[in-house]
């Protein structure tokens, strides 16, 4: 029975998520569409029990699963209208075709990453939630909600002076309620959907830029991040927050290249989800406004249009902040939480701010503790960053964007730690640093040295040489991921420059 419920929920997420992608008119490759649909559907699901509570509707299996079904129907409405208008055959043709071709050398990576995924799924299913932040707040509220049919339940009547976890986002509570009602006593299996979806998304995104060998290696380094891996089977906010924050930036940076408005607004929507999961993400979203303004200025957008676009970009984040952190806490919960009282009272003293920046660098980014948290991914990134800076002396636009995001996050987390002293270094800031991992990963995916090396491997792979089968034609698809529009040439002066792989056409 729980398995059937799990599969039905998956279908529900897929339909809801696809409906959202359709609303934003995003035409993506099959793997991206499926992965994003699951993630978006799950994000919508995480809002529904909370919405029921806001509307004073009881949390029962009927209301929860009914609202999930209604959401799926509502979000698939435009798709159904489109099918009715264009015909099913035309709709089928418009669906992304699965075009994923597996090469033999990708299989070892699939096996090892599959192992990590399997172990994570099993632990998520078999073990109960463990982290103290979950047990002393969202998990307890969800458990009581199942029997008392309300998120505002007897948990709020007990002695809660040792914790503030009851005031955190309803994201976790809602998903735990759904899966407990579906027959999973520990809930938590939804986390596996998040983990698998983002792993698929990231691998495809890396593979578009790099040779599968590098894509597999980078994904392995990402999955083998010790601290983050634990949160792929242990419910808390930061892993899910990281994913939606990263996806938001992924589409924002895509917009900086294409200028497609739907990518821009979709990015704002994803940032809204990230803010709903962790309210302080709103501050980070604001730090990306300079980049947005710069791009809009270069495109010579009129000021009124700029203002409207930015307002629409920030609107989901403002809602994602206001609904759980202001409306719900102030007007629904029986106990109140003065967020203003948590702000640092001595803002004139900047020493703690610089101390926090120093601590993040020396404690969380470098040193033995950092290796125990993140493995060596930051060291790999630092080495390749320095190599790119020295050898090429420039960074491409995508790399610059991701580096900008890394700097913004570093500045933002330091400032948040200074503004809100309860954001301690070893717990809150440490987990907030999850967000830096995909940013660093996608900087590496756009590192020009890795890209050139990828192209070199692809060229070697696609040309029949002494290592190839005699007379065997080279696969036209080999090296497609990093096909070689340019080739690197070492000049006499020792500099590496790029030249077109094919001779340029003569100008008429």
């Amino acid at each position: 029975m729980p398995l059937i419920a799990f599969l039905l929920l998956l279908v529900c997420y897929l339909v809801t998520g696809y409906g959202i992608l359709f609303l934003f008119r995003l035409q993506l490759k099959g793997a991206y569409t499926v992965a994003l649909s699951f993630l978006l559907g799950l994000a919508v699901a995480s809002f529904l029990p909370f919405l029921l509570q806001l509307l004073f509707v009881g949390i029962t299996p009927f209301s929860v699963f009914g609202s999930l079904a209604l959401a799926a129907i509502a979000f698939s409405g435009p798709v159904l209208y489109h099918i009715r208008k264009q015909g099913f055959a035309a709709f089928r043709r418009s669906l992304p075709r699965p075009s994923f071709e597996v090469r033999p050398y990708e299989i070892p990576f699939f096996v090892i990453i599959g192992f990590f995924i399997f172990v994570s799924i099993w632990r998520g299913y078999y073990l109960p939630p463990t982290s103290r932040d979950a047990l002393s707040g969202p998990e307890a509220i969800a458990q009581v909600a199942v029997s008392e049919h309300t998120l505002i339940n007897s948990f709020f009547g007990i002695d809660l002076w040792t914790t503030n976890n009851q005031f955190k986002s309803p994201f976790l509570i809602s998903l735990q309620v759904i899966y407990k009602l579906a027959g999973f006593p520990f809930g938590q299996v939804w986390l596996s959907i998040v983990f698998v979806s983002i792993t698929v998304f990231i691998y495809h995104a890396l593979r578009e830029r790099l040779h599968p060998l590098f894509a597999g290696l980078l994904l392995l380094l990402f999955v083998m991040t010790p601290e983050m891996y634990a949160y792929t089977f242990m419910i808390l906010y930061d892993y899910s927050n990281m994913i939606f924050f990263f996806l938001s930036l992924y589409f924002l940076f895509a917009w900086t290249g294409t200028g497609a408005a739907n990518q821009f607004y979709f990015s704002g929507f994803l940032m809204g989800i990230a803010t709903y999961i962790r309210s302080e993400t709103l501050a980070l979203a604001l730090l990306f406004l300079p980049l947005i303004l710069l791009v809009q200025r270069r495109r010579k957008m009129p000021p009124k249009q700029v203002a409207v676009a930015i307002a629409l970009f920030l609107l989901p984040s403002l809602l994602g902040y206001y609904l759980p952190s202001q409306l719900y806490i102030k007007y629904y919960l029986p106990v109140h939480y003065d967020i203003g009282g948590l702000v640092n009272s001595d803002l004139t003293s900047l020493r703690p701010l610089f101390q926090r920046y120093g601590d993040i660098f020396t404690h969380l980014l470098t040193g033995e503790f950092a290796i125990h948290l993140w493995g060596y991914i930051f060291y790999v990134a630092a080495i390749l960053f320095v190599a790119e800076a020295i050898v090429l002396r420039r960074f491409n636009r995508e790399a610059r964007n991701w580096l900008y995001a890394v700097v913004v996050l570093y500045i933002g987390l330091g400032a948040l730690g200074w503004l809100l002293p309860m954001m301690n270094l070893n717990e809150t800031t440490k987990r907030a640093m999850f967000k830096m991992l995909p940013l660093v990963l996608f900087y590496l995916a756009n590192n020009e040295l890795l890209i050139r090396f990828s192209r070199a491997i692809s060229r070697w792979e696609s040309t029949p040489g002494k290592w190839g089968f005699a007379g065997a034609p080279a696969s036209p698809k080999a090296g497609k991921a990093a096909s070689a529009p340019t080739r690197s040439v070492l000049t006499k002066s020792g500099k590496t420059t790029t030249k077109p792989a094919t001779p340029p056409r003569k100008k008429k």
Partner: protein
Amino acid sequence: MKGLLLSVAALGVILLVLNFGYYQEWFRVKPLQYWSDFLKEKDDTAGEYAVKAQRYGISYTISMRVLDAIRKKNMTHAVILFEPNSYYRDSLHIYPNVHAPEPAVFYYYTGLEGVWTNSPNVNKANFLLRISRKGAALDTIRSPQHLQEILVRYKKYPPIL
């Protein structure tokens, strides 16, 4: 042939990563250990209680014993007073292996209300959970005076998580 060479390279890279520095230790202690656990757990018929007891440790087991005791006593509104964890740390030297859960987590485990010695609701306490090296005991708090005597006894031990 090139595909084969790249497959060997992929395998080599994976083995290199798995055996490099801290990754080697982490892989052995965490994912490989989790795999061994899975091999045992997949045939396990343990129920929810047993899995929780294994995962949450002695604090959960003690909490469930308290629940059993309260059920046997047929108490309608039991409020359990916990000894401070600093008492277990500084006096009994059994912390952190043995520690009292915080009230919110105790409620999650048992559905019962618990308080610490410095809780605003401490006056509602009608049972004291005492833990020692020999075991745990649930004492009835007979009167407000008795409660005050208990609180004085633990005054020098501030509650900690």
